[in-house]
């Protein structure tokens, strides 16, 4: 076994950067902290790639499966011999894959931010928060036990909160950051209960023990049944609730579109490529338990993912804020990943869905980060988020145009780009295991192509808007990451994922299934074609269609009134029927009781305070009479 202890540096470097730029950032010119952060991230990226190459190829014995190993572990809190909380570094196929995703996207976003955030107030603060996020995400990815994961899970939540609220003078950003924090925190409540139930039943937090096919979680399937599901199923459903909150799955998705209030690089890093896939990563991490001990929980994962992807894709077709379109697209694609994990079996070709979900996570990180960074470049040039203010930009921003087009083609599943391979694997897995979900996903594939090209044509083609000043191409610090990510989007699909990242660590044969691939490509092309007709030139069709769909269009335009439903449930129901009575009880019964005690004491004190008159002779008289009385009692009456 070779030594991977150096991987400890991967989370620790960003932590050091966070402390350094956060504490001393105001002492230098802002650009210095940016450069320090970017350099540090460069080192982290190198280390991550080195780890990946060593783990997957150099140290790998041909024909053997990939096993997980602990590069480092230390006891952090020791409660008793049975209950300890450890911190460590776990190396296995999915954590190494996530290292690549997080470090690549984070590094790209650092470079990009040097250009995008130039001259902003709080430049150093921005970079220190980025480092904090990278540290937390790395800690989450490398967690050796579920409790460590939970700690870093909350830390990414905090850094997401800080970065969404980066423009803290804007009320909308402040409320968006609060919304994101509260919604994910609510979901994390379920996660925590799930962790406690799971570890109560299995006596361990450790991932290696949990997911081992001979471990307690899988062999001693148990726990009292409740509502027809075993205890472990409930535990895993609750754990998935945490994952659904972080990954913006229906119905906990409402924070993600609002999170777009943050700076665009943040949206690319946190709300597209890394943090929001933490939920997928969590399910993948516990996949053997889900698959072998609680298939019912896995069905929940599949259906929530499938429904979310359809739901989000429909909304994405109607939104006009480009970042919101991308946010709903992200939600839809994460739904795909969840669904892939949900329909997967364990081991061999049955585990196709597991591989496909992780594969899509990987390729999605590349092209969605690219889309967001491209959107950032456009917003940088046009100073608006709204499609209505754009049009004809292809002449002004050639590099952004080309890279954005590549990303759109990738997400639409055009052959030979990375999205095609991963999406095709997901569809194949769904096709073999769950036909209704396959049909949903097939429709979503068409919708995806449609809304992405609606976005593309509205930005780069369509009517020529009169701009206040001519839009110009972004600076090199912003276009270079675009080009690198475009390269990744094209070629990431050629990685042999079916050999590297599989449910049981053993490689299996995967091939393109034409019965699935050809229709899915065709429906993608159909979506693109419809979008071309509708949006390439300014036409009346979109307006006519919108009126034609009438109520349904309005419904989707208002995001199916989910925010309103939440407001109704919280404000009208929970506030009125739970919070207010509880507050009344607190104010009148609990406080009232305390006030009563205080008032009784005050009254009686008022009655007897006259005894302390300040007159010495009165005291003396009482004293002497008392003495005499005692003498009489003790001598004559006792």
């Amino acid at each position, binding site marked *: 076994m070779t030594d991977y202890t150096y991987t400890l540096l991967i989370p620790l470097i960003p932590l050091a950067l966070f402390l350094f730029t956060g504490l001393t950032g105001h002492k230098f010119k802002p650009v210095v902290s940016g450069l320090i952060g970017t350099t540090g991230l460069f080192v982290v990226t190198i280390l991550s790639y080195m780890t990946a190459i060593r783990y997957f190829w150099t140290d790998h014995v041909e024909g053997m499966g990939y096993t997980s190993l602990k590069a480092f572990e230390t006891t952090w809190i020791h409660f008793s011999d049975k209950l300890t909380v450890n911190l460590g570094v776990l190396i296995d196929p999915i954590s190494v894959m996530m290292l690549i995703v997080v470090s690549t996207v984070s590094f790209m976003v650092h470079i990009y931010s040097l250009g995008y955030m130039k001259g902003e107030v709080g430049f150093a603060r921005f970079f220190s928060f980025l480092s904090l996020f990278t540290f937390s995400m790395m800690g989450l990815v490398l967690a050796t036990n579920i409790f460590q994961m939970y700690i870093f899970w909350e830390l990414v939540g905090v850094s997401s909160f800080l970065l969404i609220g980066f423009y803290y003078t804007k009320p909308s950003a402040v409320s968006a950051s609060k919304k994101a924090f509260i919604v994910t925190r609510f979901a994390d409540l379920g996660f925590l209960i799930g962790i406690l139930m799971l570890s109560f039943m299995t006596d361990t937090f450790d991932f290696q023990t949990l997911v081992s096919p001979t471990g307690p979680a899988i062999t001693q399937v148990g726990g009292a049944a409740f509502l027809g599901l075993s205890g472990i199923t409930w535990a895993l459903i609750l754990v998935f609730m945490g994952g659904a909150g972080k990954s913006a799955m229906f119905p906990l998705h409402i924070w993600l579109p609002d999170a777009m209030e943050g700076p665009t690089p943040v949206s690319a890093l946190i709300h597209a490529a890394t943090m929001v896939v933490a939920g997928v990563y969590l399910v993948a991490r516990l996949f053997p338990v889900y698959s072998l001990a609680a298939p019912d929980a896995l069905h929940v994962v599949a259906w929530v993912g499938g429904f979310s992807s359809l739901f989000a894709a429909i909304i994405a077709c109607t939104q006009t804020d480009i970042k919101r379109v991308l946010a709903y697209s992200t939600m839809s694609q994460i739904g795909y990943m969840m669904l892939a994990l949900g329909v997967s079996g364990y081991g061999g070709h049955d585990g196709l869905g597991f591989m496909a979900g992780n594969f899509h996570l990987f390729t999605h990180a590349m092209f969605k980060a690219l889309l967001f960074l491209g959107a950032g470049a456009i917003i940088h040039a046009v100073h608006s988020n709204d499609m209505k203010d754009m049009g004809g930009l292809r002449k002004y921003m050639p590099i952004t145009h080309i890279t954005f087009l590549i990303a759109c083609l990738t997400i639409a599943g055009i052959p030979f780009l990375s999205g095609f391979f991963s999406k095709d694997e997901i569809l194949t897995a769904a096709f073999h295991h769950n036909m209704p979900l396959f049909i949903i996903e097939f429709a979503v594939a068409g919708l995806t192509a449609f809304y992405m090209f609606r976005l593309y044509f509205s930005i780069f083609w369509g009517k020529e808007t009169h701009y206040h000043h001519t839009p110009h191409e972004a600076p090199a610090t912003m276009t270079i990451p675009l080009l690198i990510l475009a390269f990744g989007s094209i070629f990431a699909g050629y990685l042999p994922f079916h050999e590297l990242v599989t449910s049981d660590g053993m490689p299996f044969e995967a091939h393109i299934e034409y019965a699935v691939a050809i229709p899915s490509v065709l429906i993608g092309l159909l979506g693109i074609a419809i979008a071309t007709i509708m949006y390439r030139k300014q036409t009346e069709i979109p307006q006519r269609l919108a009126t034609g769909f009438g109520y349904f269009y309005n419904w989707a335009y208002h995001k199916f009134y989910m925010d309103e439903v939440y407001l109704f449930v919280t404000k009208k129901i929970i506030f009125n029927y739970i919070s207010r009575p509880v507050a009344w009880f607190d104010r009148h019964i609990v406080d009232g009781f305390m006030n009563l005690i205080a008032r009784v004491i005050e009254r009686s004190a008022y009655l007897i*305070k*006259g005894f*302390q*008159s*300040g*007159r*010495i*002779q009165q005291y*003396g*008289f009482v004293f*002497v009479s008392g003495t005499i009385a005692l003498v009489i009692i003790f001598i004559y009456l006792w």
Partner: protein
Amino acid sequence: MTGTIPLQYFLIISTLMFFSGIFGFLTRKNLITMLMSIELILNSVNINFVAFNRYLYPDNLHGHFFTLIVIAVAAAEAAVAIAIIINIYRNFRSIEVDKVDEMKF
């Protein structure tokens, strides 16, 4: 021991002195008079000490020693009390005990 004064006489005189002291302490308004009343009380106790010593343990001197200590303490107490009274006079322009009633609720 014949021809000596019986013990009861001493006790009667000391009781009279003691209650005169108490009465004075509780009724006089002048602080100096109250101080004098306290001296009466102390001295009645002294008489008791000496008398009991003489009649119960004629061979020992413990009662006398106690009396001497009480006299010494009473002298010190009188000095402190008069100092306090002077300060009260400076603050209240009076040594009437009724006027000194600020230490109350």
